[in-house]
């Protein structure tokens, strides 16, 4: 009998306690962040989309080799001795034309492992995280600053230079045996 009445009492009392709590929450400001209108502040060192500052890139290929999913593709062409590629912001001399620098963000796992080996700190994480696309191919970003014609030109130049060099070598090498026979 005592239990019966204490049940009734605790039932009513706990309902009132619950109602008090929900009533308090009725006037509390909401915790909602209305996403497209307001954006949450990203934490420090948040890992999002990569960016490559091509002015500083020396084409060393270290990021590509560090990538665990091989999403970075780099191709380079040696510069001619006469070419002036300028210097990086840290004063390093550039010796390669970067003819291809593609990062496929469909593959990228945002591990940031490519960022650390970069000697010129030209590849880094940005704050952009809204870059969804309808086509998977559109996620393959190209960072190269040279135009296709320029790339062709650099390649041709280098091929010509190589050919000239080979010809010189051949020219230099050909007379040698003759000289020997002469002596």
């Amino acid at each position: 009998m005592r239990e019966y009445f204490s049940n009734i009492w605790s039932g009513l009392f706990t309902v009132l306690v619950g109602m008090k709590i929900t009533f308090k929450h009725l006037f509390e400001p909401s915790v909602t962040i209305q996403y497209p209108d307001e954006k949450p502040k990203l934490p420090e060192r948040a890992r999002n989309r990569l960016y490559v500052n091509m002015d500083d890139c020396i084409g060393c290929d270290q990021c590509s080799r560090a990538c665990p999913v091989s999403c970075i593709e780099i191709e380079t062409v040696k510069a001619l001795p006469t070419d002036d590629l300028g210097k990086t912001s840290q004063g390093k001399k550039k010796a390669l034309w970067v003819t291809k620098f593609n990062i496929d963000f469909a593959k990228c796992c945002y591990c940031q492992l490519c960022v650390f080996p970069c000697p010129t700190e030209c590849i880094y994480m940005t704050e952009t995280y809204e870059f969804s696309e309808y086509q998977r191919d559109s996620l393959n970003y190209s960072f190269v600053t040279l135009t296709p014609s320029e790339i062709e030109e650099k390649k041709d130049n280098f091929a010509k230079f190589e050919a000239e060099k080979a010809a010189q070598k051949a020219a230099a090498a050909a007379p040698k045996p003759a000289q020997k026979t002469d002596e």
Partner: protein
Amino acid sequence: MIIYEYLSELFGSPVLASVIQSLFPLIFLIPFALFAVWLERKVSAFMQDRIGPNRVGKHGWLQTVADILKLIQKEDITAANADKPLFNIAPVLVFAGSYLAFAAIPFSSAYIGSSIDLGLLFIVAASGFVVAGILMGGWASNNKYSLLGAVRSAAQVVSYEIPTVLVILSVVMLTGSLSLYELSEMQTSSIHNWILFGGNAPLLQKILLIPFMFIGFIILYISSLAEVNRTPFDIPEAESELVAGFHTEYSGMKFAMFFLAEYANMFAVSAIVSAIFLGGYQSPFGYLGNTLGLTWLVPIEQFLWFSAKGLFFVFVQMWLRWTLPRLRVDQLMALCWKYLIPIAFVNLLIIGLIVLIKI
């Protein structure tokens, strides 16, 4: 009352006047349902520290209108193996059942659908209609969840009608009237005349009655909550166990009918509770119209008081919904048969004794 007389004079025919006057609660109910759905969402959002609908109109007040427009456009699907005639009648029946109750509810001293002497009995009987509709809808859907929900609803509503009726009986013993109009007229002029505070009984009897009236009020509120299938008694439509219970298979306007019926029921129940215990349409302080000498203002004020009381109890229903978890079926039955009914019975006896003594 006044409106009915005016209408029958205007049209010269009591039948036409009755037909037109029977549409008045609908004019009140549809905006109310739109507002209540919006309120429910807002209250639930604020209680959970969210924002709630806020895109359509200022503070999202047009959201429910947009929802209704969406529901009207939706395809009306009838499940292939459903019992089609019953399936189609059920939502109409459920709404008709909850609308029937409004016939006996006085909105103000100028308007009551029908001032029959057995108003309370009529309302209790009409609520049986809703059970029939729910059972029909759930059974005709030919869906396990729907049938389970319908059967649960029937068991629940039938059980909880007993404490409701017992409390109503105790009030009837005190007042000697079953008409809600008379009950409201009895609780006139000021707050201490409310039946919650003993009604028009002599002072000593009043003081004795107050605690038992409070018990009766709480029992009536709990069981009325169960009768309209609101949380914590929403096992017939428990969305986490039964999808949506008896209206799982309904879509489009038929679903909207169920929804409208649910909100109409919420208001009906709140109105009945306030009419029985809290003075119905009577103001707790007196009327501005009487002090200013504008008699036409009084019925309007009464209507405002009536809707304010009804809305307050609707708000409390929502408040409870977002406070309490759902009861299990056995807990539901235990609450009714082990707690509410015995207490209501003892309460009835005590109130009967107090009324009998006539101190």
